């Protein structure tokens, strides 16, 4: 079984609770273009490279794409929870087990790419619409056991997408 077992550096990252206008603009731009970057990277992978991992025992490119769709789906639900409830606890899940369910364990990535594009489209517009007060609304991160504001979730979201995009790009032929 391939796993993501390397510890997630996000646990140790410190994202600002409220982004500056420049930081926010940059993050939103990255959030908007990530699905296209992922799709472009997948299109450059030959069928033979679809089964390769970015490191020994790590996830393959299709597993990384499914993981992005799954986890950004959870980020989306956490965002809407944070905006509609006082200090909610976010959804917890076992990401390695999630990579093994039937639909996440296949080479076909069309559904996950579509899901990623749709989620990022909605998230971009919702994040863009938030007032400063809303951007400070917190939820409890169940794994890191600490609070994240909506702006910190935006930073985490972008970080997470780019982290796995970089892994996918190392699988590309030189």
């Amino acid at each position, binding site marked *: 079984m391939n796993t993501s077992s390397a510890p997630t550096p996000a646990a140790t990252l410190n994202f600002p609770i409220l982004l500056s206008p420049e930081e926010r603009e940059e993050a939103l731009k990255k959030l908007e273009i990530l699905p296209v970057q992922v799709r472009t990277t997948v299109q450059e992978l030959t069928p033979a490279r679809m089964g390769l991992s970015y490191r020994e025992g790590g996830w393959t490119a299709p597993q990384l794409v499914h993981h992005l*769709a*799954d986890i950004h*789906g*959870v980020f*989306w*639900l956490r965002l*809407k*929870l944070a*905006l*509609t*409830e006082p200090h*909610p*606890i*976010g*959804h917890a*899940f*076992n990401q390695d*087990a*999630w990579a*093994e*369910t*039937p*639909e996440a364990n*296949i080479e076909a990535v069309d*559904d*996950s790419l*579509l*899901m990623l*594009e*749709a*989620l990022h*489209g*909605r998230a971009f*517009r*919702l994040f863009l*619409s938030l007032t400063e007060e809303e951007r400070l609304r917190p939820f409890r991160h169940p794994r890191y056991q600490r609070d994240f504001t909506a702006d910190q979730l935006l930073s985490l979201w972008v970080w997470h997408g780019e982290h796995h995009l970089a892994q996918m790009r190392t699988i590309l032929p030189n």
Partner: protein
Amino acid sequence: MSPSQHLSDADFERFRDQIATFPEQVRTVVAELTPARLGLRYREGGWTAAQVINHLADSHLNALVRVKLLLTEDNPTIVPYDQDSWASLPDGRTEDVEDSLRLLEAVHRKLTYILHHVSPSDRARTYYHPEYKETRSLDYTVSMYAAHGLHHLAQLRSILPAEAELPR
């Protein structure tokens, strides 16, 4: 049906097929709605067509998450949400529904794939809903979300006729 009851194979396959074809049915109705009618409500005080569509995408994304949770954990407690508050956010009210339609399509294709690859013992696996205090099997979840989709599809269809006078 009770939340822990099992479906016959025939019923399971019927609900699974409803889930498979649902996004296409929603697309068909939306294609017939003029943009102006997306802001109409199926009844006074009810949601607009746009809110129904955005709600379906969010609700069925929650369904996918719940199905993945019950397949990977032992009777996990899921996270409920306030659907009316979600529908009141700018994201819930927007009449730009294309991304919700695409999210619905992607989620239903994933759910359909899962439901084609689960074993009888998987179908008996459960999650716990803390608000309703119910332990729900995968079989029940499949029947519930199939019905949930059709319930809202009927609301969308009632907004269709161009001559119907409906509240905004």
